[in-house]
């Protein structure tokens, strides 16, 4: 017959050990891309998604775009990063572009690869390419609008908390009249409370 105290010690020791060992081991799993991530008060992929979606919805709903019979052609210019963080603003632009293309109401013209395209035409006219396969120039789309913007941030902090404010502002400019036909902004505020013991 086992002694009660002996059994108690074994159980307590086992439970303590299990807790300690389990707590120290890490794990990983898949999570939904739509799940909000909030590790800290810095720029995150959730911010990129929220900003991109807001801008795309706003553009598509605007009368200049919604009221057209045929899709318009937009050239994407640079989104300036005026924050104090290293942010790939091209990723926000890509997010907007993908969302707009899916609506079918907008076309995009890619001006970043013009140099590569001209090189390809140069190669075609050099006689190196099979003449029957050469692409003919003169069919490039002209952009109806240019889309550009800037991302700004303001960061404030004291000993116990910090507050970061992000603002993405974008505008659509007519290539014909230079008129800004659409503009919108998306603001985000993130608050962080600092722990007393910083691990």
């Amino acid at each position: 017959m086992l002694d009660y105290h002996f059994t108690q010690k074994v159980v307590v020791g086992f439970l303590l050990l299990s807790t300690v060992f389990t707590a120290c081991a890490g794990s990983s799993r898949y999570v939904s891309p739509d799940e909000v991530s909030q590790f800290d008060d810095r720029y995150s992929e959730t911010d990129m998604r929220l900003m991109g979606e807001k801008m795309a919805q706003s553009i598509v709903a605007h009368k200049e775009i919604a009221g057209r019979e045929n899709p318009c052609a937009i050239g994407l210019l640079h989104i300036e990063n005026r924050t104090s963080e290293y942010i790939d603003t091209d990723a926000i632009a890509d997010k907007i572009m993908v969302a707009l293309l899916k609506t079918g109401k907008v076309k995009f013209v890619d001006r970043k690869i013009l140099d590569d395209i001209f090189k390809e035409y140069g190669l075609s006219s050099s006689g190196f390419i099979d003449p029957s396969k050469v692409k003919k120039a003169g069919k490039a789309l002209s952009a109806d609008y240019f889309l550009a913007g800037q991302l700004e941030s303001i960061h404030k902090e004291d000993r116990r908390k910090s507050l970061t404010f992000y603002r993405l502002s974008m505008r659509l400019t007519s290539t014909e009249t230079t008129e800004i036909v659409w503009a919108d902004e998306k603001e985000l505020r993130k608050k962080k409370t600092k722990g007393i013991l910083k691990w």
Partner: protein
Amino acid sequence: MKHSKALKMFSVHLLLFALGTALFLGCAKSAFQKGQEAYFKADFDKSIEYFEQMKTKKDKNYVLYMLDLGTAYFTAGDYYEAENAFLAGIQTMEKDVSEAQAAVQLAKSDAKKTYTGDPHDMAMAHVFTGLLNMELGDLEAAEIEFRKALESDRGKEEKYEGDLCLAHYFLGQVYRMKGELDNARIAFRNVTEHRPEFPYAWYELADIAEQENLSGEAETFLQNYRDKDNYCSLGRGLEHDPNLADLTIVLCLGKGPMKKADPFLGAFSQVAERKYKEEYAELSVGGALLCRSYQVDDVTHQAKTSGGFGGELARKTAQVVAQQALQAVPGVGLFSGLLLGGAEADVRYWYTLPGEFHIIRGLVAPGNYSLELKFYDKKDKELEGYRQVWYYVPVREGQSNILILRSMLGMQKG
């Protein structure tokens, strides 16, 4: 009688043999130690040879073998092998252990555990890999490595957050080469915020402001550069002479930090500075003095201010709890001293890590040059035996000319 005498003699001889063997084994150095010694005698081939012997030993110090091997290859100029070694070290430091391994690790004393690197080890390994990728022309990979270095540098006290200026500076260079002026501006601003005395970041900010037609701002930044760089090796203005090329030397100076047991909390380790004589260097190109070096980062400072005390405290607490729990189990308690290690501090460290990073930069006409580096101490006295001369160094127009060198006594013998 005769037998007992013979037995006595045999016992004495056996004892002497055992003592001699113990002494010999105790004094014999491992290949790892020999490799470290050879490194600081500037015998890099020998150093590499010894470190390569340790490569196949996937034991608790594998990370240290790889980091030292990477540094040896890096200093010797074999960048591909250096990258392989650093990446192997980084991958091991990043690897998550299984629950079973975590349990075993918890039971051991720190000195007997697999070395997984301190935060500054990880940050510096990424910085080295980033520099290697820049040298090899892979800007995308370089950007990733410098950003990982900055990520590894998190978890510090607020005032030291983001102060890894070496990573910021070269990240800025990468962004400039990629045409991302916004991010380049952020990078150089980070450098001027944490290290306002470093001149080249001010010059870069001036150049970027000029490109963006912000002449007033450009002039302010340029004046800051002129105030910080007595030699004005990048020129007094921003007009770019198309006939001149940019030469940058990254100088790894001195010896990185060591670790020792905290005198009050013996279970914890403490970062300590290793003494070295070099304070700065002067560069002459083709016999003409170009400029001196400026410190962009202090590795000992990074090690002292890197976070992780809270994590170490938690680990030590968990270790003590585990030990107490095992001791409470009858029967096991007797063997707990054997099963469990003590709580002694882990004083292992990256032996060949440099103590500081300096940058020397200037505009030079393209061509092949002899470069001479003279090293000076705190009292501006030239250090004997440290001078380096490199012959037929090409400086090419239209591309970044970056050289990475290390200060060391006897680097060039004769």
